[in-house]
C-alpha cells in the first residue's frame, strides 16, 4: 500500500504554488498538489472552494497567475485545451461538451479526425472504439445519435473522447451529478478498470461516499486553499467533512425563540424533472409552519433550485402535491402569478437572470410581479409619483443605497440589489416567503441587514423557506434544517443538535435518509 507522498511512486501531475485570482476573488491560493500515476485521486470541497478553477487551469481554460505545472516530472505550460490534450490530459466536463445531432463516432472524432478526409480516420476510430469497448467495457454504438442517448451513455462518450486522444490522465468534474445510482456504479467500475491499466484519474466531487468507495487518495480544498491530502484508506468521512468545512466561527444572529404556528406550506412527495428530463427533486416531503424558518442546506446542484422553482410555480411538478394553507394548490394557480395570489413570495436565487431587470430603474424592478397592483395607478396609466414614492419608502425601510429610485438596477451593488428584491417581496406581506441564496454576492454589511429582516419576518408570523449553500447562514437563521442531496432529503435537524460536520456528512450523501 502506498504511503502518502511516497517518493518512489511516479508523479503524474504536480501543481506547485498555483495561484489564480479573478478580480477581487482569489480562487486558488498557492495550491500544491501531487497526483501519483495509476491512482484514483479525489478532490473534495464545497462550492467556491476553487476545485473547478484548478481543473480549468489544468485543462488550459485559464492560465494561472503564478505557479508551475509538471506532467510526469516535466514542467509544462498549458495555454489551451489543445496543449492539455497533447500532454495526455483528458477532461470529462460536468456539462458535456458534445454535439447532440451528430453521431457518437463524429463526436469522438471531432478535433482528432486523423486527416482532412473523414473516411480513413473514421475506420481507425471505429477500430479504436471497438478496442476500448473490449478492454474497458465501454460499449457504445458508434453510429447512435448522441442526442438520443441516455445521460450515462453520453458521459461514456465523453470518456471515450478523452481516451481516443490518448489521455493518460483523466479528469472528471462532478461526474455523478447527472447519473442514476446504477449508472454511477457502472462509471465506477469503468474507472477501476482504467486505473488497472495505469491511467491516472482525478475525480472531483463533494460526495464523500464516492470518495470513500472509489478513490485511493483524496485532497481537500477549502476557500481556495489545498488544506489536506490524505490516503483514503486512512481517513474517514467525518475527518474529511471537517477539513472541507473547517472550524470557523459560526455567524451569530440575534434571534429569539421561534413560536411556530399552523402549517402553511406542505410538500408531499414532490418530484421535479429538469429540462432534460433528469429527476432533480426526488420524492421530497416537508411541512413549513408560520413563524418558523426552515433552512434547506445542500451543495449547489442537488435539487434546491428546482424545488424552489416548483414551489414558486415556475417549473411544473412531475409528481406530488403542494398544499397551501390546508388546501391543495389548484392547477390554475400553478404559475408565478397564482402563487403570489396565494400569498407566497419568492426571492429567486439568481437576481440577475430572474429576480430583477437590470436595465430598468430600481423603482421598475420593484414592480416585477406586482405591476398590476392598483397602488401604482388606478386608471390606465401608471402613477409615476406613486411608483417612485413607493420605492423611496422601501429604500428608506431597507437602507438601500443610494436612495435613488430612478437609478438603473444594474448600477446598484449586489447587496443593494438583493435588498431591492427583498423589499419588494417582503412588503407585500406574504404568508410564505421562499428565499434562495439571499446573500450570494452580497457584502458583509448588507448580509447582516438581510439576515435581520428574515428573522423579523419570522417573528411577524411568516413562514420562511430558506435555501442556501452557505452553512453559516443556515445555522444562523434556521429553526429547523433540511438537508438535500441528489434531490432527496437526507436528514432533518435542529440547529442546536447538529454541527457543520454532521451537516457536511448529510450534504455529502452520508448518513441516514430520514425525511
Amino acid at each position, binding site marked *: 500500500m502506498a504511503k502518502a507522498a511516497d517518493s518512489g511512486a511516479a508523479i503524474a501531475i504536480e501543481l506547485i504554488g498555483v495561484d489564480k485570482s479573478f478580480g477581487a476573488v482569489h480562487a486558488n491560493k498557492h495550491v500544491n498538489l501531487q497526483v501519483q500515476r495509476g491512482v484514483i485521486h479525489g478532490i473534495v470541497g464545497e462550492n467556491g472552494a476553487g476545485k473547478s478553477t484548478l481543473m*480549468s487551469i489544468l485543462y488550459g481554460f485559464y492560465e494561472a497567475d503564478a505557479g508551475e505545472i509538471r506532467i510526469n516530472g516535466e514542467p509544462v505550460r498549458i495555454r*489551451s*485545451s489543445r496543449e492539455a490534450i497533447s500532454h495526455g490530459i483528458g477532461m470529462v466536463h460536468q456539462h458535456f461538451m458534445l*454535439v*447532440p445531432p451528430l453521431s457518437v463516432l463524429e463526436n469522438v472524432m471531432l478535433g482528432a479526425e486523423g486527416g*482532412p*478526409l*473523414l473516411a480513413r480516420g473514421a475506420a481507425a476510430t471505429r477500430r479504436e472504439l471497438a478496442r476500448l469497448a473490449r478492454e474497458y467495457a465501454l460499449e457504445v454504438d458508434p453510429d447512435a445519435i448522441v442526442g438520443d442517448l441516455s445521460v450515462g451513455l453520453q458521459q461514456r462518450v465523453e470518456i471515450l473522447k478523452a481516451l481516443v486522444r490518448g489521455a493518460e490522465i483523466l479528469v472528471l468534474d462532478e461526474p455523478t451529478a447527472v447519473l442514476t445510482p446504477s449508472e454511477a456504479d457502472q462509471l465506477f467500475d469503468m474507472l477501476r478498470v482504467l486505473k488497472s491499466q495505469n491511467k491516472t484519474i482525478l475525480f472531483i466531487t463533494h460526495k464523500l461516499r464516492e470518495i470513500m468507495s472509489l478513490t485511493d487518495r483524496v485532497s481537500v480544498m477549502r476557500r481556495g486553499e489545498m488544506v489536506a491530502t490524505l490516503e483514503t484508506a486512512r481517513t474517514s468521512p467525518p475527518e474529511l467533512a471537517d477539513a472541507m468545512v473547517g472550524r470557523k466561527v459560526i455567524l451569530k444572529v440575534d434571534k429569539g425563540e421561534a413560536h411556530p404556528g399552523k402549517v402553511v406550506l406542505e410538500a408531499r412527495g414532490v418530484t421535479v424533472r429538469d429540462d432534460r428530463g433528469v429527476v432533480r427533486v426526488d420524492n421530497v416531503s416537508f411541512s413549513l409552519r408560520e413563524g418558523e424558518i426552515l433552512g434547506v442546506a445542500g451543495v449547489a446542484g442537488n435539487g434546491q433550485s428546482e424545488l424552489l422553482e416548483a414551489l414558486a410555480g415556475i417549473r411544473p411538478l412531475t409528481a406530488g402535491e403542494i398544499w397551501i394553507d390546508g388546501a391543495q394548490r389548484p392547477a390554475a394557480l400553478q404559475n408565478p402569478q397564482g402563487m403570489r395570489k396565494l400569498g407566497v413570495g419568492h426571492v429567486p436565487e439568481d437576481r440577475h437572470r430572474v429576480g430583477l431587470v437590470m436595465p430598468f430603474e430600481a423603482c421598475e424592478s420593484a414592480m416585477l410581479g406586482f405591476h398590476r397592483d392598483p397602488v401604482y395607478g388606478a386608471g390606465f396609466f401608471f402613477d409615476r409619483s406613486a411608483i417612485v414614492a413607493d420605492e423611496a419608502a422601501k429604500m428608506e425601510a431597507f437602507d438601500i443605497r443610494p436612495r435613488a429610485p430612478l437609478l438603473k438596477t444594474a448600477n446598484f451593488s449586489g447587496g443593494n440589489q438583493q435588498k431591492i428584491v427583498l423589499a419588494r417581496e417582503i412588503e407585500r406581506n406574504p404568508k410564505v416567503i421562499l428565499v434562495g441564496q439571499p446573500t450570494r454576492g452580497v457584502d458583509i454589511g448588507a448580509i447582516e441587514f438581510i439576515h435581520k429582516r428574515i428573522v423579523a419576518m419570522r417573528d411577524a408570523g411568516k413562514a420562511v423557506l430558506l435555501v442556501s449553500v452557505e452553512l453559516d447562514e443556515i445555522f444562523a437563521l434556521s429553526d429547523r434544517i433540511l438537508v438535500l442531496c441528489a434531490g432527496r432529503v437526507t436528514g432533518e435537524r435542529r440547529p442546536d443538535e447538529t454541527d457543520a460536520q454532521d451537516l457536511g456528512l448529510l450534504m455529502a450523501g452520508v448518513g441516514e435518509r430520514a425525511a
Partner: protein
Amino acid sequence: METFDAFIVILGSGIRLGVPLILACLAGLWSERSGVVDIGLEGKMLTGAFGAAAVAEFTGNAWLGLIAGVVATVAVSLVHGYASIDQRANQIVSGTAINMVTDGLTALIGNAIWGQGGRTPQLPDSALFASIELPFVNALDPVPFLGNVYRHIISGHDIVTYAAFAFVPITYWALYSTRFGLRLRAVGESPAAVDTAGISVRGLRYSAVLICGVLVGLSGVYLALAQAAYFQPHMSAGKGFIALAALVFAKWRPWPALATCLLFGFLDALSIRLQGAVLPFIGAVPVQAIQTLPYILTVVLLAGFIGKATPPKSSGIPYVKER
C-alpha cells in the same frame, strides 16, 4: 405532345431561373450551418452581379468579370462576418444593413459610371457566358422524348449553371466526408464543444462566411453574365430571399436544397408561362398566386404544419467563451 414540349421548355426555363437560387441557397447553407445567419444573400447577389457586369463591361472578358464579382461579394461577406463574429452583432440587423447598402451602392455607382439609372449597356458576347451545347445534341434530336429533354434540359446551359449543379454534390461531400465539414457542422450546433476540442470557432465561422461569399457571388455573376447580359439596379428582385426560403424549406441540407430551388425556379417559369392563360375549372390563373407559392410554403413549414424546421442550434447566437 405539344403540352409535353411546352412542359420541357418550362422545365428548361425553370432550371435557368433556379440556378441563382441554387448558388445563393448553398451559400446560405454554408453560412448558417456554421451558426452565422445570413439574410443578406439578396444584397450579396446584387454585389456579385454588379462587380461582374462592371468589370466584364470594361474588359470585355467574362472570366475577369466572374473574378471581380466574386471578390466584391467576398469583401461584403467579410463585413457581415466581422460584425457577426467579432463584434457579436445582431446578425439579422447586419444582414439588413448589407441589403440596404449594396442595393443603394450598386445603383449609385452604376449610375455614376454609365448613367441610365445605373444600368450597364448590353454586354458584348465575349463578356458573357455562352450556352454550351453538349455533344450529340443533334444526333439525339430524332429520339422521342429523350432528344427533347437532352436538348432543352440537359444541354444548352452555360458553365456557371453546370458548376452550380456540381456544387451540390461537392457541398454534400465536403459537409459529410471531410474534417472541415464535420467541424463546421459541429460549430453550428455546439460551439462550446468545438472550442473545448481545441478548434478555433472563429476560424471555422470566417471560413464559412468566405465560402458563402464565393457561392453567392457566383449567383450574382450568373444573373449578370449568363441570364441577363447586363446589370440593372435591384435586378436580384427578391431571389436572395427566395433562396433563404428554400434553405429553410430544405432544412439546411444540400440535396433537398437543390430540389427546392429547382421547384421554386419551376414555379417562377410556370408563373411567367401561365400569365393570362386560362386553365379548365380554375379560370384565369392569377400570376401572383404562383409567384407567392414559395413564400407561402415556407411560412407553412415554419408554422410547423409540414414537419419542423429547426435551424442549427447556435444559429444567430454569437459565441462567447463562457468560463
